């Protein structure tokens, strides 16, 4: 079953007017993008800056309206949600941000960062403060941190630990699908390996569905089942991962592959 189904969505952003009388020019950030993610699978999204990767993730999260097309989540149009529906959608689809340094409030402790979602969704969850704390401890253990990290502030943690907190925060509401927006590009190679393995373990354990955005093709190849190549808001090519890397069809995909550093001869 397809958990997420995007049917040719478009998104326009207004640009500055060039004349008093003419129509306002628009920038087409997404132009007829379609994709499907089967439950429990990982879809990789590749594209250069400005290709619409971030707009796509924002639309999926419901943070931005679409100007055409539909986003179906479990066969439900997310644009049709009322306030309660949006809140439910938010709990099922969570995001891990690229920069673990910028995506956390420096004045909040790790406990409060991870528990914030549970506080916001208090009405459905009905957890007491103690139960929330128990869940925070459990989450931190799942991502390889300990109880002792709970009362620290984000500046006291290393980059890898922060990204783990980011993942714990995303898992707090037991989502079905995670959007991973370049989750390792701010991390060192050895830490990246730890985080990638952790993401894989979590997927195995909870049957999570991933949308993995990255411009590191080696990481995409390692993590994804299917890959979609975006360029200037349009889908250039979508294919199963190995097929895309072995036999890229589109010229643009081929140029991407050619630009990729050759690491196969590394020991």
């Amino acid at each position, binding site marked *: 079953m397809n958990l997420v189904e995007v049917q040719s969505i478009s998104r326009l952003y207004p640009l500055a007017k060039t004349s008093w009388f003419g129509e306002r020019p628009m920038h087409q950030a997404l132009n007829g993008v379609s994709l499907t993610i089967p439950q429990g699978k990982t879809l990789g999204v590749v594209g250069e800056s400005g290709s619409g990767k971030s707009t796509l993730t924002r639309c999926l999260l419901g943070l931005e309206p679409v100007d055409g097309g539909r986003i179906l989540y479990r066969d439900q149009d997310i644009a049709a949600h009322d306030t309660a529906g949006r809140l439910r959608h938010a709990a099922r689809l969570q995001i891990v941000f690229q920069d673990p340094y910028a995506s956390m409030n420096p004045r909040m402790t790790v406990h409060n960062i991870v528990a914030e979602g549970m506080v916001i969704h208090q009405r459905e969850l009905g957890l007491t403060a103690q139960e929330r704390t128990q869940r925070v401890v459990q989450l931190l253990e799942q991502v390889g941190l300990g109880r002792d990290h709970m009362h620290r502030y984000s500046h006291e943690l290393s980059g890898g630990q922060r990204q783990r907190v980011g993942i714990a925060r995303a898992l707090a509401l037991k989502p079905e699908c995670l959007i991973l927006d370049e989750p390792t590009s701010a991390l060192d*190679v050895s830490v990246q390996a730890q985080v990638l393995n952790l993401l894989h373990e979590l997927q195995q354990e909870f049957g999570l569905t991933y949308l993995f955005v990255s411009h590191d093709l*080696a990481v995409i190849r390692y993590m994804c089942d299917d890959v979609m190549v975006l360029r200037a808001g349009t889908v250039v090519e979508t294919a199963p991962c190995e097929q895309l890397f072995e036999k890229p069809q589109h010229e643009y995909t081929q140029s991407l592959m*050619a630009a990729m550093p050759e690491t196969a001869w590394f020991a």
Partner: protein
Amino acid sequence: MSSTLDQGAEMSLLHIQNLHLSMHSFEGDAHVLNGVELKIEKGQIWGLAGETGCGKSITGLSISRLVNTPPARYLDGQILFNGRDVLKLKESDMRQLRGREIGMIFQDPTTNLNPVLRVGEQIADVAYEIGRIAPEILGLTATARASQRKKAAQKLGVDMLERVGIANAAQRARDYPHQFSGGMRQRVLIAMALVGQPKLLIADEPTTALDVTLQAQVLKLLSELVSSSGTAVLMITHNLGAVAQICSHVAVMYAGHVVESGLTQEVLSHPQHPYTRALIAALPKPGIQRGTLSTLPGRVPNLIDPPPGCRFAPRCAQASHECTLAVPALVGKSDTHRIACVHVQPEVFA
């Protein structure tokens, strides 16, 4: 401390010997560089690879002496550039080296360009200053007037833009940095760094802020430009893929020490030091089963109170008592492959 006797016998373009640097902080003095050894000859392209906080950028900055002292303090060692110890030069002599003999490119092209000056003007400024020291670069003699120099500098600025592959250079020179894309801005910085026809170019993470395709383009441009002029390059990066793309040699740093160095092909295909091995094993490569990427246990050591001896020992599977006695020296056949590990026998590579 080692002597400087080898200056006459075999003078390298850059020879960093046993460089120790400590950085003062509230928590104490961090021993950031712990005996860095590096030797670069004319025309070589070196990659200086390592993870965050290993001291690779500080090493690069030290060469053009851009590290503030204090908080930093050089404890020992020397940086011989063309046989002269950079650390002992007067500031006025240093200014003659920077930009002229040692060019620099930094990571973020946006913050390194002045947003309110035209791009051509910014390159011309550099060319004008260099023209003071070396008028021949502008095609002038030492007696040339300032106005002549200015004119020649502007012309050279446009020429440089053309050389780094910016179409319609004369026109684009009148644009501001925000009218350039990220890749083009990095080209502008490369142009600026190469104006003085430097003998050594230090590029600190030149492509980290760029997309994959641009990354390849910029790296290719860089290697073309330097190979035509014989400029040596020290490219500081955490990306081993980028090293493999253009570097002839590579030095891998860990916690303030070069643990392995040599020919890129040799080091990356036959890594000997446990850290280099772990680093390469942690790279996702085609054909690796998902979830089986090998990781490095533990964390980078605290440099204020570093572990005794080899700083990698606490995370190393092969560590023994021997490792904690002293920092292992970088041994082996110079230039092709050198390793700093007590468990790796230098004879194997001699």
